[in-house]
C-alpha cells in the first residue's frame, strides 16, 4: 500500500489488519510520554483545502505521537476557488522532500490526481462526495469495540447518502467486513445507481429501525432544502431524524454513530446525544489511534509498538537512550 485513497482499494483483510494493530497505538496515548519513534525523521504535510479542524488535529496528533514532523500547508479559503493548479501545488510539496501528504479537498478525486505528480504517500482525508477512508476505518474500529466481529451484523446508514463521502466509504468498509448495510433516505438523497451498490434501501425510517445492530446518522446539510432534495429540515427531522422514540425503538444496546459535527434537532433530536448508546465521543477518541495505525502502515517499518509496553521497561530505556 503506497497511498490510502479509497476503501475500494482495500481488502477485508487490510481493514482487519488496521483494526488489529490499532489498540497498540491507542495504548501509546496512555503513556507518560505519549510518543513512539516509529516515524522519526519523516515529514507529514497536512494539506487542507477545506476547513476541518477536527480531522486535521486528529491527523496532526497522530503524526506527532509517531514522532513525525508535521507541516500545515495553509491554503486560504479564498484561493480554494476556480483555477488552482494541482500540479503546481504537488510539485511545490515534492520539492520540499515531504514523505506523506494528508489531503482534504472539496472536489472528488483530488487525492488520486495528486499521486500523478507526487512520490510522497497520499492519505485521503476526505474528497468531495467520494471517500473519507480514515473515517470509515475509525467507524469500523468503533463498531468492532461495540459489536465484536461485524460479520453478519446489520448496519443502517441514514440520511444524505448521495452527497456523502462518509457513506461511500462506510458502505464499502462495512460490507468488506461481512456486514449487511441498509441505506435509509428519501429517494432524492440516494445516489443515482444505488441499485449497483451492495446494499438494501429503505425509505421508511421506522421500518428500517425495527431490526438493526447499529445506526449511522449522516450530517444533513442545510442547503439541501434549497434545491428541492427535501421540503424542509423540519419534515426531514420528522421522517428521518433519530428521535427519542426511534432510539427507544432500536433498543438501548444498539450503538448510534455520527461523523460529527451533529445538527441537533435535525438528524438527531436534541436529547438523543446524551444516551449511552451514542458513541460519537468514542469515534473521536479512536480517530487518533486509527490514524496512527494508518500512518504507520504507510510510512513505518518494523513491527508496531509492543502491547503492553510497560512490561518491557528495558526496551523503552533503550529507545530513550538512542533518541538522546
Amino acid at each position, binding site marked *: 500500500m503506497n497511498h490510502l485513497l479509497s476503501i475500494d482499494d482495500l481488502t477485508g483483510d487490510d481493514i482487519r489488519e488496521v483494526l488489529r494493530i490499532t489498540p497498540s497505538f491507542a495504548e501509546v496515548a496512555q503513556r507518560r510520554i505519549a510518543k513512539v519513534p516509529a516515524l522519526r525523521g519523516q515529514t507529514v504535510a497536512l494539506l487542507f483545502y477545506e476547513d476541518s479542524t477536527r480531522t486535521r488535529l486528529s491527523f496532526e496528533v497522530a503524526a506527532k505521537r509517531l514522532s513525525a514532523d508535521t507541516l500545515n500547508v495553509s491554503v486560504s479559503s479564498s484561493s480554494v476557488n476556480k*483555477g488552482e493548479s*494541482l500540479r503546481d501545488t504537488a510539485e511545490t510539496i515534492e520539492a520540499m522532500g515531504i514523505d506523506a501528504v494528508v489531503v482534504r479537498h472539496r472536489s472528488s*478525486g483530488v487525492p488520486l*490526481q495528486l499521486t500523478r505528480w507526487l512520490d510522497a504517500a497520499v492519505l485521503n482525508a476526505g474528497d*468531495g*462526495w467520494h471517500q473519507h477512508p480514515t473515517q470509515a476505518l475509525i467507524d469500523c474500529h468503533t463498531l468492532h469495540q461495540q459489536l465484536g466481529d461485524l460479520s453478519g451484523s446489520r448496519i443502517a446508514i441514514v440520511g444524505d447518502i448521495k452527497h456523502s463521502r462518509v457513506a*461511500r466509504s462506510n458502505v464499502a468498509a462495512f460490507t468488506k467486513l461481512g456486514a449487511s448495510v441498509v441505506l435509509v433516505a428519501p429517494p432524492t438523497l440516494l445516489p443515482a*445507481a444505488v441499485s*449497483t451498490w451492495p446494499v438494501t434501501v429503505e425509505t421508511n425510517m421506522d421500518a428500517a429501525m425495527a431490526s438493526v445492530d447499529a445506526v449511522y446518522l449522516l450530517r444533513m446539510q442545510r442547503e439541501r432544502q434549497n434545491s428541492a432534495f427535501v421540503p424542509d429540515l423540519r419534515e426531514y427531522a420528522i421522517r428521518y431524524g433519530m428521535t427519542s422514540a426511534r432510539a427507544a425503538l432500536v433498543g438501548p444496546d444498539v450503538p448510534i454513530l455520527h461523523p460529527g459535527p451533529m445538527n441537533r434537532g435535525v438528524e438527531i433530536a436534541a436529547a438523543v446525544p446524551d444516551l449511552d448508546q451514542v458513541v460519537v465521543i468514542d469515534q473521536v477518541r479512536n480517530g487518533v489511534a486509527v490514524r496512527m495505525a494508518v500512518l504507520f502502515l504507510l510510512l513505518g517499518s518494523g513491527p508496531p509498538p509492543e502491547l503492553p509496553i510497560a512490561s518491557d521497561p528495558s526496551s523503552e530505556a533503550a529507545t530513550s537512550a538512542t533518541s538522546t
Partner: protein
Amino acid sequence: MTGAWSIRGGTLIDAHGTRSGDVHVRDRRIVGADDMPASATEIDATDCLVSTGLVDLHAHLGEPGNEPAETIVSGSRAAVAGGFTTVVAMPDVMPCVDTAAVARHVDVLAGSALCHIEVAGAITVGRSGVHLAPLGELADAGVRYVTDCGTGVQNPLLFRRVLEYARPLGLLIGQAARSDELADNAHMHEGEWSSRLGLAGEPAEAEEIVVMRDVSLARLTRARVHFQTLSTAGAFAIVNAARRSGLAVSAEVSAAHISLADADLATYDTNRKVTPPLRSESDVNAACNSLLAGAIDAIVTDHTPCTRDRKERPFDQADPGTIGLETALGVALTRLDDPAAAFRALSWRPAELLGLGSPKERSLMPGSPADIVVVDPNQNVRVAAATMHSLARNSAFEGMELRGQVRATLVAGDPKVRDGQVMK
C-alpha cells in the same frame, strides 16, 4: 505547388463503392488517366485505402482569442495530419462569430490554413440565447452553418423562430441538445460510475428531452435540424425515428463517444472530461451500431484544445474537451469494422450536410475536387499527444492503440501530407 499526381495501387472507397484502382489529380481536380501529363508524380498507395478527404463538422480552433491553446494554422496542421481536408470552425471564439465582420476576419485567418476552413456562425448574439444573430448577413458572408455549440439554444420559442427564419437562407442549423436545468452543472454521466466516484451526474434524459423537443419543432417548422455530438442510445433512437417519419434531421457523434465510456473516468483523468459527458458502455455500443446502420450521419472530432493549466485541476473545475483531429480516423477505423461506414461518416455524408456536394459529385471520379486521403489501415499507432501537431496536449485517447496511419492528404490537389509527414 499544385501539380499532377497519380495515386496508385490503393483500394478506393467513396459513395460509388469500394474497388481497386488509381486516382489521378491535375489542376486541383480528379481527372482521367488520359488527361495526365507524363511528368505526373506518383504516390504509392499499395495496401492503402484511398477516399475523399475527411470533413469535420465540429472543431474548436482557438483563434481568435485562445491562441495559446491553438491557432487556425496549427489546428489545420493537425487536421491534415489526421486526414481532414475541410474543418468547420466553431463560432465560440473571442470575439464570438456573431457578425459578418468577425466571420470575414476568421476567413482571412483561414487563408493561411493547410486545409479548407468553413467558418460557422453563432445563432444568437454572443451565443447567449437571447437575440438572434444576423443570420442573413452571415449567410451572405459565406457562412453555411450556424450553431450556439456548447450551450445550445435552451429556449424553445427562440429555437422555433431560428428554424423558421433560417429556412430560406439555406443554413444548416446545429443544436447542442441538452437541458442545462436538468443537467444541473454535472461533471459526468449519471450512473454507476458517477455514484461511485462521487461526481455530480448528468442523466441521459438531459439530452434526450431536448432532442425530442427539437424533433417536434422540426416537424412544426418543416426546417432542417442538425444535432451536434449526440451521446445517448435514446437520442440516437429518437433521431432515427424522426428521420424515418420524413423529417430533415441529422446527427453527429464525436470520436470520444464511440470509444470511451464513463468507466474510463475511474482515474479522474480530466482529459477525458468532455461535453456531453462520456456515457455508458451500452451508449457507446449504440453509437457504433447507429453509425454502421447509417442512422447517425457523421463522426466529428469536437477538437477542443485546452492549455495545460485548464486541465491540471480538480475534475469538477477542469475545462471539458479533448483534442481529436489527429485521432478521429484511427478511432473510427478501430471501432467500426467497416471502413466504408467510417469514411461515409467522416467524409461524404458530412460534406453533403454542409452543402459541399452530393456523395456522387464529391467522389474519386473525374471531375471531383481533389480533396483526398490515403491511409494505411494495417499500421497501428499508439496515441502520444506530445508528438502531435496541435499546440494542445489534452487528448482523451492518450496511450490508446489505434488502427490506421494517414500516408497522404491532398487538399485541392496539393499534397499537405506525404509519406505520413506534414509538409512544411
